[in-house]
């Protein structure tokens, strides 16, 4: 972990024009995706999904049910493969790890005083270590938005770098909590700082705010990832969380990624949707595509 304040400050130089960004994102998100492309996109959406439950009322039973669903997104169509991961609170990592042992589905845990991130560093790091020890393959943390907005980029950077250290072999997904950053310029800057600190994935939101992933934010972060790749050669993934509820939205995001980062990014290793209700809509769409009849939501399992 090294101090690089001058380099971090230089990241401020690149800026984003809000309206033009939104215009481009809206256009990409409205590509007309039909037939074979739609089917492929829906399958990708499932394959890149972090099926998530992050509620105070979560229980082992709820998590076990979700893990079953993760393995069999559509119980009536075994051709639909498992989702990428399940995402739970740290205390339920053990439950999920046991339920998914021997399967390709990863266990992701939020950690580091999620969703606010407001706790002492040693407590946050200890939580990460414990989650990894309990079997988490991936750790989702939030950056210190207070430090970021106050201009203390080094502090944000070092915090993330320490989290990365604490992860060991687990992947670190760093949440920017875009809804609190106030501008695309800041979203871009936070993306660059989080990537410079060694994040494996940068992620939009905790899902706890009303403003989370939007097409423009996704595009802004994808462009930051592409620029980081150009500058350092490092491939960083993107996770969109919060607000992605329909298959149509998901396909729009896939177009944004495909036409910004290329199809190489449309894999579970580099791209994720963090979602809960999205899966059902995707399954309904897949069933419609296969049968030509509109499917019924109540026929899907409740997880």
């Amino acid at each position, binding site marked *: 972990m090294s101090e690089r304040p001058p380099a971090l400050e230089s990241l401020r130089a690149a800026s984003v024009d809000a309206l*033009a960004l939104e215009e481009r994102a809206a256009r990409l998100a409205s590509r007309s995706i039909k037939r074979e492309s739609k089917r492929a996109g829906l399958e*990708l959406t499932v394959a890149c999904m972090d099926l998530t439950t992050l509620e105070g009322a979560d229980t082992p039973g709820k998590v076990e049910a979700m893990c079953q669903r993760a393995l069999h997104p559509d119980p009536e169509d075994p051709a639909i493969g498992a989702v990428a991961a399940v995402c739970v609170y740290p205390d339920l990592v053990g439950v999920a790890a046991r339920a998914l042992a021997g399967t390709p589905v990863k266990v992701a845990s939020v950690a580091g005083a999620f969703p606010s991130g407001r706790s002492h560093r040693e407590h946050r790091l200890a939580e990460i270590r414990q989650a990894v020890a309990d079997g988490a393959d991936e750790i989702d943390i939030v950056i210190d938005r207070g430090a970021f907005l106050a201009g203390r980029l080094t502090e944000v950077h070092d915090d993330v770098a320490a989290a990365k250290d604490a992860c060991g072999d687990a992947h670190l997904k760093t949440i920017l909590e875009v809804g609190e950053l106030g501008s695309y310029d800041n979203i871009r800057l936070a993306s660059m700082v989080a990537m410079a600190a060694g994040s494996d994935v940068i992620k939009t939101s905790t899902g706890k705010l009303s403003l989370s992933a939007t097409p423009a934010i996704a595009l802004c972060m994808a462009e930051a990832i592409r620029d980081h790749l150009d500058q350092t050669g490092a491939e960083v993934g993107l996770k969109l969380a919060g607000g992605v509820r329909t298959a149509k939205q998901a396909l729009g995001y896939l177009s944004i990624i495909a036409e910004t980062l290329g199809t190489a990014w449309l894999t579970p290793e580099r791209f994720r949707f963090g979602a809960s209700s999205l899966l059902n809509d995707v399954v309904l769409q897949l069933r419609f595509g296969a049968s030509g009849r509109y499917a019924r939501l109540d026929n899907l399992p409740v997880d």
Partner: protein
Amino acid sequence: MSHNEETPRKSGSNPAERFADYVPSIESRDIVSIRSRNGLLIDGAWVDAADGRTFTTVEPATGEALAEIALGGTEDVDRAVAAARHAYDSVWRDMPGAERARYLFRLARLLQDRAREFAVLETIDGGKPIRESRDIDIPLAAAHLFHHAGWADKLDLAVPGMRAAPLGVIGQITPWNFPLLMVAWKIAPALACGNTVVLKPAETTSLTTLLLGELTREAEFPPGVLNIVTGAGDTGAALAAHGGIDKVAFTGSTEVGKSIRRAVAGTPVRLTLELGGKGAHIVCDDAAMDQAIEGVVDGIFFNQGHVCCAGSRLLVQEGIADAFVDRLRDRIGRLRVGDPLDKNTDVGAINSAEQLARIVEHVEGARQEGCEVYQPPCALPERGWFHAPTIVTGVGGSERIAREEVFGPVLTVQTFRTEREAVDRANATRYGLSAGIWTEKGSRILWFANHLRAGVVWANTFNKFDPASPFGGVRESGFGREGGRQGLQEYLTLAPVR
């Protein structure tokens, strides 16, 4: 989409590729029915040309004939002008503005009702991507009608201290790049102000204009208020030189514009000319890079570059030039060139074989003058007229490609060191229609806006149009404005209220 069209799953291939290849998503042609023979609209009725001549309109994406259209001659122009004069004298001039407004509002609504049909027809006849005709051309055309309808009963408010009156009969000649939109730009203010119109649409793209003519019948416009005489250059020349009109409004090439200017010299006929351009698109080193790339791409590849205000000359600051051009090359590699009716097509068909030949000749000329020509690898459709997106570097500024309007998907790239140099290069042209500037510094935007010799300056955006916003050029890009209060004035005589 019907599930029967479902292609079998290619489980072997990579789903990311299968997704991103975007299987064709073709807008159905079923919504339009093209009449095989189309007449002139004179005095509210469809009639054949006096001498019975016709010409064929062709679909640019396939090269196949679409329909026969009456070829208007001098006699037809005479009849149309006479009908327009009669309608002017007998009904339209003295009709209360509020009533004229109702006809125009009605027409705007009818156009909105049938917007998709118009969009598909525009794309079939002209070759532009359906996304553009559907999302830009047709909605904007309706907006122009709607906006100007509201002016009809407020003309005395248009210019403070001046009483407004219509001019009389207006001869209007429209181009093939935005066929219906340019018709709306022309007829909406003319009719709102109480003038009557004889309209000559571009020969390669008459069909949506004729359909709009049919809508004026559905809207029960008084006969003769809007007359349409289809045909080619000779028809337009006959209209522009006709002794019975009070104003000519022309959008098209600078060359033809000058000939019209000469034709009305020494007469009281008023004139609005919206002509060619060679717009500079300036990108400063502090610009928001990705958005500037999109702006530049949109600036030149929108509508295949068949845009008089296209940003056809990129001027990029030296410090970022290499990186910018690299990214631009990469970006145009992602443009989808092909079937204009495919909803995912970014760059459609070149409007005519002649235009394609002109573009190819320009690009060849650039090569011969030592410029470097880049075209991304992209498969063009085998039939129809298409041209790959093209970037020309190694341009000094004196080459033909840097001075003349190509009117195609061809961008030249030059660099600059200082703002002053950028402005000097931008202004070193006989044209003066549009310019674009990308910088994050507000004061720099205003400095450029003050120094660029252009009728429209887009800052951190490009190719935006609105009925409330005056559009038009300086220098040899023409004179007069279309849109806004200033555009309205072009169709009024103003006398001081004493």
